[in-house]
């Protein structure tokens, strides 16, 4: 008689980050094999983009990754700018940086709520999601939308900052800094969290490199790889920041790296607001949007998302529609190469904790 049994977790399960399903095989409560089952969010982006004009795709592109849509706009715009040979104005570079960092902060705050909830602490979710909403208010003021901004577009950004927006953002940065002390006391310094997360889902540096980890997962093993430093875009080359790293490589280290990344983002927002040119254009004059004929050629543009390297491989063919756009989400290797291996040998109660410690974003996998 076989002692093992099968268990399907998701897609309808609160411990799963989004519409995604896990097929586990267990013995007792120890996982002996794990398989991810994606595709519940497949919307055929890559096919749809081939049938639309470049400007129409701008409405499609932020929907690839919901918690942090701006990285998609930035990556897509950078790919077009690269193929067309467009330089964006200085002021636009800084505005992009501010928007991207603010979006990164919101993504981490949302992740924090889910991560703490996976360990049984729901208070942090209430706080972090509430504080995230104030950043969403800044976005509504800037772009008119809460979630899908469509603000960064080829050639720069869609419009200039509204009056007084910088001060509001600085106020928010100050507010969040004060709140983060409370977060630390409640969660990141909490003995329960440390005991529960230390040593869970540990990966070594060699494994991380071999399995294609990027972003906080790789930084938690001690490799300071960050697209913002290695292949700088927007205004990152003018700003001063360090890439936080830890060497443990476990769930705890990944959480702490993300906590440091929030500090980093807040400091980058402050620096960018201090250094931003006070006047100047925010958009390089581009041709009529219905006539963006992107020259034939291939390019790969990448940005650093909250989860790792987010890339766009774009093939232009001289017409108004892209010939092929291939999207690289950081979650694909994190889920199918790393999580499937890390879940083996873990306890069932840790399964959703491990997934959240890798910050899996299913829409990025399915596209």
């Amino acid at each position, binding site marked *: 008689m076989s002692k093992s049994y099968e268990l399907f977790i998701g897609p309808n399960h609160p411990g799963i980050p989004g519409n995604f399903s896990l097929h586990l095989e267990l013995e007792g409560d120890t996982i002996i094999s794990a398989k991810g089952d994606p595709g519940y*969010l497949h919307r*055929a982006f890559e096919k749809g983009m081939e049938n639309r004009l470049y400007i129409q795709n701008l409405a499609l592109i932020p929907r690839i990754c919901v918690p942090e849509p701006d990285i998609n706009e930035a990556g897509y715009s950078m790919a077009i700018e690269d193929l067309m040979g467009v330089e964006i104005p200085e002021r636009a570079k800084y505005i992009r940086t501010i928007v991207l960092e603010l979006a990164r902060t919101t993504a981490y705050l*949302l992740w924090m709520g889910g991560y703490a909830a996976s360990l049984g602490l729901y208070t942090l979710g209430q706080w972090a999601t509430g504080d995230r909403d104030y950043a969403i208010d800044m976005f509504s003021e800037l772009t008119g939308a809460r979630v899908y901004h469509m603000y960064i577009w080829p050639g720069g950004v869609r419009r200039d900052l509204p009056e007084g927006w910088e001060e509001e953002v600085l106020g928010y940065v100050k507010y969040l800094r004060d709140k983060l002390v409370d977060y630390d006391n409640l969660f990141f310094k909490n003995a329960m969290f440390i005991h529960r997360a230390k040593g869970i889902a540990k990966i070594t540096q060699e494994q991380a490199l071999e399995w294609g980890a990027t972003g906080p997962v790789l930084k938690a093993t001690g490799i300071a790889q960050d697209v913002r430093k290695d292949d700088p875009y927007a205004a990152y080359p003018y700003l001063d920041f360090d890439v936080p790293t830890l060497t443990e490589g476990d769930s705890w280290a990944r959480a702490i790296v993300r906590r440091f990344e929030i500090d980093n983002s807040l400091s980058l927002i402050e620096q960018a607001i201090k250094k931003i040119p006070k006047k100047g254009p925010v958009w390089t004059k581009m041709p009529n949007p219905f006539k963006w004929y992107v020259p034939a050629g291939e390019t790969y543009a990448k940005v650093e998302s909250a989860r790792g390297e987010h890339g766009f491989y774009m093939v232009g063919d001289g017409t108004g529609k892209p010939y092929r756009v291939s999207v690289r989400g950081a979650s694909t290797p994190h889920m199918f190469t790393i999580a499937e291996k890390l879940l083996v040998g873990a306890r069932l109660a840790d399964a959703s904790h491990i997934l959240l410690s890798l910050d899996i974003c299913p829409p990025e996998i399915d596209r």
Partner: protein
Amino acid sequence: MDKMTEEQYRAISNMLRKRSLWMLHYCTGCGAMELPPTMTSRYDMERFGIVPYVTPRQADILLVTGYVNIKTLRRIVTVYEQMLDPKYVIGFGSCPINGGVYWDSYSVIKQLDKYIPVDLYIAGCMPRPEAVISSFRHLMDLIDKGQANGYRRYKENYEYYEKNQRKVLG
């Protein structure tokens, strides 16, 4: 008690039902992004007696948040049939209404109400948390008036729904 007519009984049960709606915690699409703010401290839908709940058997509301692709539709139909009466479906965002931006996508269905009965649609991409809460309030009114009877329509027109489901799910 003996003299209570069926109408009176129904009115009272509707009044009680609308005060405690449990929403199934199933993020079917990107609209789920506006649910954390709606659930947590800032908008706090628990004020209205609505809480997320994890299993279909105990839930009253199925919130279809955004586009429904074929693979998800199969799960949505299963989940919907697992839920106990009375049950209500809210279509959230533009995509369940007419496909939204995915009108030419081979994997996204274009009208949710051909496959399961929908009591209420919230338009917009994405609807703001205020819109979500207002739609819940509207659903409460509908329940009070006895007009949110999607689950009865599903039983009465089961052949119609089943035919449509079979057509796309195979």
